């Protein structure tokens, strides 16, 4: 079974600075996908960024980028130029290439951006 671990329950950052959220996972599979989801207070989870395991290039989406280290089974999220609207719970998630879309989540990291 796959597991996903986020070791930082809470993080904080000043507006306009950069922050990195950590995620590690454990799997014996070679074909899988990794995701970061954001859940603002009282709102639904939305996808921030995704990474296919077969791609060596790290995914980027505007201010969000990942550092995908397949051998180390690490998948960290970097948020550059942090904004107040980035304040949210962030979930790292794993999806097997053989599943029917099932996501395995980490515990989540609460990120607070301070003005």
């Amino acid at each position, binding site marked *: 079974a796959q597991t996903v671990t986020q070791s930082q329950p809470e993080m904080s950052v000043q507006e306009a600075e950069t922050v990195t959220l950590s995620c590690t996972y454990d799997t014996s599979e070679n074909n899988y996908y990794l995701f970061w989801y954001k859940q603002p207070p009282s709102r639904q989870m939305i996808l921030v960024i995704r990474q296919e395991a077969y791609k060596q290039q790290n995914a980027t989406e505007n201010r969000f980028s990942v550092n995908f280290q397949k051998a180390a089974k690490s998948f960290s999220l970097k948020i550059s130029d942090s904004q107040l609207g980035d304040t949210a719970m962030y979930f790292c998630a794993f999806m097997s*290439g053989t599943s*029917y879309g099932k996501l395995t989540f980490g515990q989540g990291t609460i990120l607070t951006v301070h003005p």
Partner: protein
Amino acid sequence: EPEVTQTPSHQVTQMGQEVILRCVPISNHLYFYWYRQILGQKVEFLVSFYNNEISEKSEIFDDQFSVERPDGSNFTLKIRSTKLEDSAMYFCASSADRGRATEAFFGQGTRLTVV
């Protein structure tokens, strides 16, 4: 922008009672999911549903749980005889596809409290 909607946002029920949680997925999506999050714990997969049948279910999804798509728009989760430990936030999600890192869209959740 299309979104997944869940009703009610909060439901309180007595132990042993049946409860139905409702979800309206995004209209052109074909894959549907339920997840739950017990307070302070990880978001956990319950079940995935496609073509009017369960595709995959977790060990949590035992005989007291059932899912249904009764009318082509709603997707429901029924808990037959609720227990105290069923108290959790329940999230519905839908996706257009199940693989290739397809984005799952989540609802805001229904907080179920069993007393």
